[in-house]
């Protein structure tokens, strides 16, 4: 070994031992990279460098990697030490030894002492028990041989491999057997033995064959029997013939198939656990709450994007509808009776193609049966059954609407049928909301259009007929009325408004129709509490119709009502005494068209009913609009009318309660309000002159303006840097190697020099000794 490397390693050691701080503080170690100018806020890593430290680090690293590689160069084999923790520098040598020992012990323990109860330790030498070695019987382990085909018997094996000088089959027998043989069959020659062996094996072979044939026969018989049964079960004989051919290996196939089947068979999925009624109720409640929240959001006029939730719900409900047994579960079956069993079995309703079809289908049935027919049609034409069904059901919705209109227009309106058909209509609407909305829109547009035409000609129009009123109610049932803007209900409300402002009240029927419209209007706004001025106007006007003395009014009535004139006393009682026999009962819907009031008493009763409806609606409105800032002004006409002209003394005792409630509501409303101010708006932030901060990915020159260009530039730069670095490293590597090689050469030379010197020395001493000897001899 030369001196230089020793020295360097020494220096390294010294460096290592020195503390980090000491190195950093040592001015000779530290190199300061002088900066041309300071940049505020920039943190530089490389203002101080420790060249010595880093150089020694680099050299060490090279020694560990490059040098080793260099030394291994041109060497075919290499020594890898597989001992535990050999290359692990972290483990201390003592620990290493301990662990190795523990491992060794464990290995031996597992192998030998598995069933050793008395945990005596065996002493080993080269992994073999010293105790066993002392016995000196080295047995040949025949484990390997038994791996041959299982057909070979032990004897055969023995005879086959037993031969050979010194170590044959016969000699290899275990000691016990050997003893027996020694006793009985000593005389048997080797030849005899072999023959016996052959015989035995032949016999065995035959037996095996017989057994196999028997099995074959049995299977064939079984197959035959199976076929006869199969022919019974499957009519197709061709298939049976076809199965004959691959008969050769049916067992394997069946088995494979079975295995595969089992493999692919659906594993029982964990089903959702059965829900308790409480849970179901809770779920339902949550769903409703969510829908309610949705509705509120729409009411506030916030736009919504997704309706996925409701869509899925509709789907599931439709499925439930469909899956409920088609025929036998519903009560229509017993109605038709057993005789029509076959008929019923194919009782399949085609969706009507035209309105006439639908009419024919429903004509002559009771309302309940009409509902059933429609329900059945709907189930039979469920969209999931065929492609065009959805369209058919959409059409069905339109026809049903038309049909309902017609029912309402008959001389005696069949409203129970309408009532029965409603759930079906609802279900159809849920199935295809767009088509339903379009159909209802069309109906409303038609009604409004005809009214508008009349208004253009005459300036006013008659009240909507019963079918329009029913449509309005249906609209409210099918679509949410509380939305801020809804494509169906907003026009419907406008239609109500149009009717309430443009239709003059000329008869008691008109008054009833108007009040029905008011009821609808109240229902429309009952949830959203939206303000409907026409409603209040109409109610005021209706009450005005009941005022006897039209002079000195403290209020004004809005059109279509007039202050005085024809038909302005419509609700004034002809006989004040008639109220005694009056009792409130609900009005039939048909009262909007024809009233059968023969006597004055009947008329008075109807008037009183109208008045009570009107007062009740006013009361409801009072409660609805209680929060509006202008509540008192809105209800001022009603208030003054009720207090001055229809005061509580003049009114029927049954209505006095309502009257009192209204007056209480009106008088208790707050009349004072906070003054209006604009909404506080966010103060506009001052214009700040902060520089625009751009993300700096890499310092240095920045070219290009787009992001891609900058990225490209950055990568190029990085590549260049890395390339240069790599070159530098390679250069350093080669320098290091050169240095190492030089060291090697120098070491070699030095060695040679030393050896030559040694030789010269020894020769010199030899020479000297020889000379000395010669000298002595001379002496």
């Amino acid at each position, binding site marked *: 070994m030369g001196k230089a490397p020793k020295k360097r390693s020494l220096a390294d050691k010294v460096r290592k031992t020195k503390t980090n701080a000491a190195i950093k503080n040592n001015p000779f170690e530290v190199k300061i990279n002088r900066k041309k100018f300071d940049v505020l806020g920039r943190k530089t890593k490389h203002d101080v460098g420790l060249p010595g430290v880093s150089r020694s680090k680099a050299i060490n690293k090279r020694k560990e990697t490059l040098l080793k590689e260099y030394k291994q160069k041109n060497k075919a084999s290499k020594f890898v030490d597989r001992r535990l923790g050999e290359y692990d520098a972290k483990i201390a040598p003592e620990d290493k030894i301990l662990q190795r020992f523990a491992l060794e012990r464990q290995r031996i323990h597992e192998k030998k002492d598995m069933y050793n109860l008395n945990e005596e330790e065996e002493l080993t030498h080269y992994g073999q028990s010293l105790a066993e070695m002392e016995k000196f019987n080295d047995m040949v382990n025949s484990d390997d041989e038994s791996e041959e085909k299982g057909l070979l018997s032990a004897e055969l094996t023995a005879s086959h491999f037993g031969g050979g000088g010194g170590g044959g089959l016969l000699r290899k027998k275990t000691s016990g057997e050997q003893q027996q043989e020694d006793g009985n069959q000593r005389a048997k020659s080797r030849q005899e033995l072999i023959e016996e062996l052959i015989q035995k094996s032949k016999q065995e072979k035959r037996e095996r064959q017989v057994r196999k044939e028997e099995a074959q026969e049995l299977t064939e018989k079984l197959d035959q029997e199976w076929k006869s049964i199969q022919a019974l079960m499957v009519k197709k004989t061709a298939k049976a013939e076809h199965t004959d051919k691959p008969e050769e290996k049916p067992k394997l196939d069946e088995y494979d198939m079975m295995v595969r089947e089992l493999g692919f068979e659906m594993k029982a999925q964990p089903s959702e656990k059965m829900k308790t009624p409480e849970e179901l109720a809770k779920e339902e409640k949550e769903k409703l709450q969510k829908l309610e929240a949705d509705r509120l959001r729409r009411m506030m*006029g916030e736009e919504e*994007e997704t*309706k996925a939730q*409701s869509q899925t719900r509709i789907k599931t409900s439709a499925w439930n509808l469909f899956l409920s047994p088609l025929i036998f579960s519903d009560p229509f079956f017993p109605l038709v009776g057993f005789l029509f069993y076959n008929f019923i079995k194919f009782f399949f309703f085609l969706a009507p193609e035209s309105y006439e079809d639908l009419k024919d289908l429903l004509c002559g049935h009771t309302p309940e049966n009409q509902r059933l027919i429609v329900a059945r049609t709907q189930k039979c034409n469920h969209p999931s059954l065929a492609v065009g069904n959805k369209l058919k059901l959409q059409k069905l919705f339109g026809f049903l609407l038309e049909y309902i209109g017609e029912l309402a227009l008959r001389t005696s309106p069949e*409203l129970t049928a309408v*009532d029965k058909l409603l*759930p079906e209509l609802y279900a159809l*609407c849920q199935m295809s*909301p*767009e088509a339903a*909305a379009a159909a209802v*829109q069309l109906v*409303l*547009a038609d009604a409004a259009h005809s009214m508008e035409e009349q208004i253009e000609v005459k300036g006013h129009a008659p009240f909507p007929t019963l079918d329009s009123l*029913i449509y309005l109610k*249906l609209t*409210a*049932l*099918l*679509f949410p*009325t509380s*939305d*801020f803007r*809804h*494509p*169906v209900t*907003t026009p419907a*409300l*406008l239609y109500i408004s*149009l009717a309430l*402002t*443009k239709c003059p009240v000329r008869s008691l029927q008109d008054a009833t129709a108007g009040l029905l419209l008011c*009821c609808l209007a*109240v*229902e*429309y706004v009952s949830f959203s509490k*939206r*303000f*409907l*001025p*026409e409603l209040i*106007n109409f109610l005021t006007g209706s009450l005005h119709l009941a005022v006897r003395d039209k002079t000195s009014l403290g209020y*004004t009535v*809005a*059109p279509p009502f007039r202050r005085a004139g024809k038909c302005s006393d419509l609700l004034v009682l002809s006989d004040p005494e008639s109220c005694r026999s009056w009792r409130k009962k*609900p*009005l*039939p*819907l048909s009262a909007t068209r024809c009233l059968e009031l023969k006597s004055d008493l009947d008329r008075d009763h109807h008037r009183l009913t109208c008045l009570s409806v009107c007062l*009740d609606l006013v009361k409801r409105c009072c409660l609805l609009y209680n929060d509006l*800032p*202008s509540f008192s*002004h*809105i209800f001022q006409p009603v208030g003054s009318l009720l207090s001055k002209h229809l005061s509580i003394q003049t009114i029927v005792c049954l209505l006095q309660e309502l009257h009192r409630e209204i007056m209480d509501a009106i008088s208790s409303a707050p009349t004072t*309000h*906070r*003054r*209006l101010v*604009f*909404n506080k708006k966010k103060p506009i932030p001052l214009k700040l002159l902060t520089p625009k901060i751009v993300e700096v990915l890499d310092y240095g020159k920045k070219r290009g303006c787009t992001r891609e260009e900058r990225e490209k530039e950055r990568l190029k730069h990085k590549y260049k840097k890395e390339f240069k670095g790599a070159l530098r490293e390679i250069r350093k590597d080669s320098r290091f190697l050169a240095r190492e090689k030089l060291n090697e050469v120098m070491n070699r030379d030095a060695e040679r020099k030393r050896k030559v010197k040694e030789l010269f020395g020894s020769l010199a001493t030899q020479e000297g000794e020889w000379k000395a000897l010669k000298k002595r001899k001379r002496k």
Partner: protein
Amino acid sequence: MAPSKKRNVNSRNTSENVSKAAKLDLEGVVDRILESRKHANDIFDVLESLQSEKERDVVSALDACCRLFSTLLERKELFVGKLPAEDEALSGESSAEDKCRIFMRHRYNACVEILLEHLNHEQFAVKESALCCLMKFAAGQGQHPLEDLEWSEHHSFPRGIILAVVENLTSKTTDNTLLISRFQEFLEMDDVRYYVMSALRESVGKVMEKNKGTLLPVYQNNVFTLMSSISMPSQQSELTNFMVKLEDKPEDWRAAKLNNHKRAFEKMWLGFLKYKLPSNMYKKLLVILHDSILPHMSKPALMIDFLTAAYEVGGAISLLALNGLFVLIHQHNLDYPDFYKKLYNLLEPTVFHVKYRARFFHLANLFLSSSHLPLYLVAAFTKRLARLALTAPPTGLLIVLPFIYNLIRRHPSCRVLLHKPSTEDEPVEDPYLMDEEDPAQCRALESSLWEIKTLQKHYHPDVAKAAMMISTPLSEQEEDISELLELTTYELMERDLKKPQDKKSIPLEFETATQLLKGGGDVLAHHFCLVSDE
């Protein structure tokens, strides 16, 4: 004299076979008469069939008469000058030529009589033909005057025939609207128009005096229709279309001067408006007043009495009178002291419901566009409109909300109505007095527009959105309300119905519908039932 003659004719002709007369070939008869004077007596057949019962006969007879007398007029075979009585003339000593002319002139007069009578015939075709025929005679007479031309004032214009036509057109018993619209074609001619106007003035004065100013709806309607169908020229140069074409346009012919036309027009209208009018005609008149009457009057200011009277009436009539008043104020320097006070009092809940809503708001917008209005006035208008908005239909609201915003924009000091931050904390009662008639006393400036805040809860989304604007300061730009003025509820509905909605987002009612009367608070179920129990 003429009626007696006619009776004469009648009596003589009734003896003859009516059916035979009807079948007479009238054309041939006319040709024969024109050919020679020998057949002059055949003219009685024509006149007789003119009075036949059958419409077709009458019409063909009318045509025949028309041709016959037009030709005679052209040939100057009618007697000119003061007509002597027939018997006298025939017995008198004049040439056969003159006798014949006198005879023909008498027949002509009888024919005109019958034609005028026919103007009140039941059949429109007869009326129409008679009218055309008469006007043709008038034209012929104008060309070949039958009177001596000592009346240089009117020159050769046949005033008498026009006067008679006008009197018959403005019947007291039948509605002649259709016929008048046919007559309009002749009113295109400037001289006819002039003389019709003066004739109308005379006849209206006469008739109304006789009736002591009571209402004559049919007559007045006829007169009004005739008068309103007169369309005046606006420039002297447009006076070119004359029925009577004079070669030497005399300078002093009244009908040729626009000023005279204007004067006649004005006199006619003033004469008509002096008397009491039925209220629907009042409205009709006021609707066209500013457009087709006032500009053609020589002194429009004369209308002021009529307009102020109409403005005082109240209701829709006042609304309509506004327009005329506006023209007078704007173009003719009329000073109307309590104009704005009146306007303020016109604001009633009915304003939003009447047919003339668009016109009213258009004008109100004009009146209130002045930036010199006092603050209290603007505030009063604003507050009153807001209060009325509480009873208005959505179409009205869509007009009145931008209207209010525009008022506040024009008068920024009115912003206190929307924004009064200093007294924000303590709630106050609305100090505005709705019943106060004087806008100066109504304390509107001390109030706030809580009504608009109420309307933020209006059921129609557009109205609610418009009302939402009060919560932020208004933009500088005024909104244009002109296209909202004519909006009807149906159009508003259509907007929603036709709106292309993205098909996925039709929300549905989630509460399952089970019964027709249920749902929505069960108001309907509370008061109504499907069928009566009885």
